[in-house]
């Protein structure tokens, strides 16, 4: 056993160095407590735009923001980063907030809905952005566990058993495991190198602003939607096309990691929509389109079986409940072109405008 003790002792400096860099640089703010998210929520609650937000837990922002709001916005958007370009102008002058969070799963939609449904008055209309992965077991998406308490609460209200799953405390423990994660170490080391070479590249603090866009930093608008930095906004059509193809290759055998519809997830989704309707909320479903290159790739490789299945299912479910469906995973059906995309799956504001203008035309 002496050999293994010595081996462990020899490995300690490596583990120490890795954890010093990851915890010290901490590009995703995993080890800094929640003051970062509270500050962002405070500015948003004051109706101000917030610029230069670094990596953060946007679920926590939603929790703190809902706690600061007296009443819910009239129109609420629930979704992932694919829905973050939906802005106030789609709400026809009504009070609007886009509560989309990155890498959202169905659990996020439920938990965030609970945050706003408990306000008085609750939202009148909820635009639910459905991604293909929402209808499959998404074990790889764990961000929602920050809001597991809220999700437990809404599941109970929906009459479903929350079941045993990880608690907030376990989620916090998982975060500390990132201190020894090689990929987080790489990200931290790169950030550190950039900061050493160029001081301006070091992480700057977020700030409230009246400006709606900057060249070198993204802005979270007061309506909850996102304006990317110039590098993303001015991405050429060729670069977007290349990115769309890379995305297709990555998920060659699946669409967004989804390979089949899960009946249990369908049932939970239907219960969720049914619960919103039962609370008197008007529900609109939004299907964010994929870049034409990505969509064509999926069609060629897999006949887009899962994407088509999800869309067909969502449309039939919505039709049975008289729910309006906007957009489509198919860009042609959604009425958008290559120029309306940042990359494979993130549609520009121009694309969103086209999708919602079709609704207005109807």
């Amino acid at each position, binding site marked *: 056993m002496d050999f*293994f003790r010595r081996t462990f002792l020899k490995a300690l*400096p*490596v583990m120490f160095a890795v954890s010093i860099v990851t915890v010290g640089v901490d590009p995703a703010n995993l080890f800094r407590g929640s003051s970062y998210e509270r500050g962002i929520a405070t500015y948003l609650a004051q109706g101000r735009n917030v610029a230069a937000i670094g990596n953060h837990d946007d679920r926590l922002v939603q929790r703190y923001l809902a706690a600061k709001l007296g009443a819910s916005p009239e129109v609420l958007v629930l979704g992932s980063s694919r829905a973050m370009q939906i802005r106030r102008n789609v709400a026809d002058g009504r009070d609007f907030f886009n509560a989309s969070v990155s890498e959202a799963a169905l659990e996020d939609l439920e938990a965030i809905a609970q945050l706003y449904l408990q306000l008085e008055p609750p939202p009148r209309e909820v635009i639910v952005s459905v991604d293909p992965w929402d209808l499959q077991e998404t074990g790889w998406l764990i961000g929602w566990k920050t809001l597991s308490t809220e999700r437990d609460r809404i599941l109970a209200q929906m009459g479903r058993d929350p079941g045993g799953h990880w608690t907030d405390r376990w989620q916090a423990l998982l975060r500390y495991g990132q201190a020894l994660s090689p990929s987080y170490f790489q990200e931290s080391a790169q950030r550190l190198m950039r900061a050493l070479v160029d001081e301006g590249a070091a992480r700057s603090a977020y700030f409230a602003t009246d400006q709606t866009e900057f060249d070198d930093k993204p802005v979270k608008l007061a309506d909850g939607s996102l304006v990317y930095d110039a590098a993303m906004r001015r991405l050429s059509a060729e670069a977007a096309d290349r990115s769309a*193809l890379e995305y297709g290759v990555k998920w*060659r055998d699946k669409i967004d990691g989804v390979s089949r519809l899960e009946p249990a997830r369908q049932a939970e989704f239907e219960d969720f929509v049914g619960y919103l309707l039962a609370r008197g909320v008007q529900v609109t479903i939004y299907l964010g389109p994929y870049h034409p290159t990505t969509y064509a*790739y999926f069609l060629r490789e897999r006949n887009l079986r899962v994407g088509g299945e999800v869309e067909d299912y969502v449309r039939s479910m919505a039709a049975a409940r008289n729910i309006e469906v906007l957009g489509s995973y198919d860009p042609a059906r959604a009425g958008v072109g290559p120029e309306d995309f940042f990359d494979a799956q993130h549609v520009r504001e121009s694309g969103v405008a086209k999708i919602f203008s079709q609704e207005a035309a109807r």
Partner: protein
Amino acid sequence: MTFTSPLFLALLFLSVCAYWALPVRFRWIWLLVAGYLLYLSTGPAFFPTLLVVTLATYLGGRLLGARAAPRAPDGTDSGEARPKATRRGRRLALTLVVAAAPLVVFKYTGFVADTVTSAARAAGAGPDLFAWLTPEHGWAQTLLLPIGISFYTFKGMSYLIEVARDPSRMERSLGRYALSISFFPQIFAGPIERPHAFLAKLRVARPFDRERASAGLGLLASGLFKKLVVADNLAAAVNQVYGDLSAHVGLPLVLAIFGFSLQIYYDFSGYSDIANGIAQLFGFDGVENFRRPYFARSFREFWQRWHISLSTWFRDYLYFPLGGSRVGPTRHVVNLMITFVVSGLWHGAAWTFAFWGALHGLLLVADSFARPLAARSPGPSRAFEVAEAEAPRGTAGRVLRSAAAGIGVFVMVSVAWVFFRAPSLGDAIYVLSHAASGVVAQLGSAKAFRAALAPTGLTAASAGVLAVSLAALLVVEVLQESGRWSGIWSTRPAWQRHVLAYGMVAWILLAGSFEQNSFIYFQF
């Protein structure tokens, strides 16, 4: 959980510590449980197949090694008790069919049905009797190939053949036999260690050997380096090209051809190093699976160096029983072709793999027949090795000829890999027919060169990382090939070895790809 994940490595460390802390009689049980738990972590649905193959081959072994009656009073074996040769042959055939049945069903039913259906459609024949089994009708969705099935099935089959040949190799303990099939470093992708060889190791008391454990750690680090730094970084560019072949001509295709050649070698030899390193940490000697195959100067030599545990399996259990080379020339060619086409289909149920195997069969046929011809011919057509043998050792001419032969083999093997990697035969032909298109223009200026390689996603930084890493591996392999590596390494002062080891770990952490890419051979 893959062998390269930090969680696996942490659990491995704890598992090794617990193993050596346990009393000797419990250690094999610990290994068996660890193997089963690791296998279960890939998906409980696959586990019953492993159990079925284990049990079927164990019972088959008992059947083949059975002695129905006790020995005679004078202690001699009357021979009556043991099955006679013809009966044993029938029993062996039966048990092999039973053992291979899950592999055939899971891996080849869809392929056979698809082929028959396509042929029937092409011939305009009646209803598609087998269409319901083809992937487009959901076959692949409902019946997933259990991970490692090709490897553990071949282990079980070699056990049956060995017991049929020598009944004393029968193992009575089901638990120990199960361990020989599911020894966890080898369960996913080999090396295909013969169970009787593993069981022989198991019977020998193995006290903790510090030198073996140190060597195991070295192999583990070497495997992680090959996989994470080289293979996975190459995979990013290679997958980009193969993901949309029609969008590429010229240099990206050249990069894909030779990039995949290096990727698959460092992926699989990296896996084998990790597997052998782990085995050594548990006190077992590893099984050599790769011996610097791209240093081979003939195709025959290549197959003596590449995936050794599989090529010797096919040699011992297929090629030799067919007659090997001790038959007429025509039959010898047929034997080679059968062996290599079956080997191709073992890798994957698709015509691309069959073609890849057939191509290697042809190369080996050419190699086999060129050898005696070259030996007879004194002219310039003599094979490199003949000329090389005549040249004084260490002369420039010998080195150049040797290098030329090695490069020739590497190029041809890389061309053959195209059929292994491409999604279809048509795609493979596209790669080979368009690899030279526009290369001169793409090499015409630095700007054109960068523009040509941009779609592969290969940046200056990633190319630099790969170049440095490959150069380091090349230096080590040249020293290993010349037999000087172990001497150089072991005579270095401890501080120098520590600096190198820490440097290697740092390089893995900084330059490795940690996206949890699976090993290529896990799919077989």
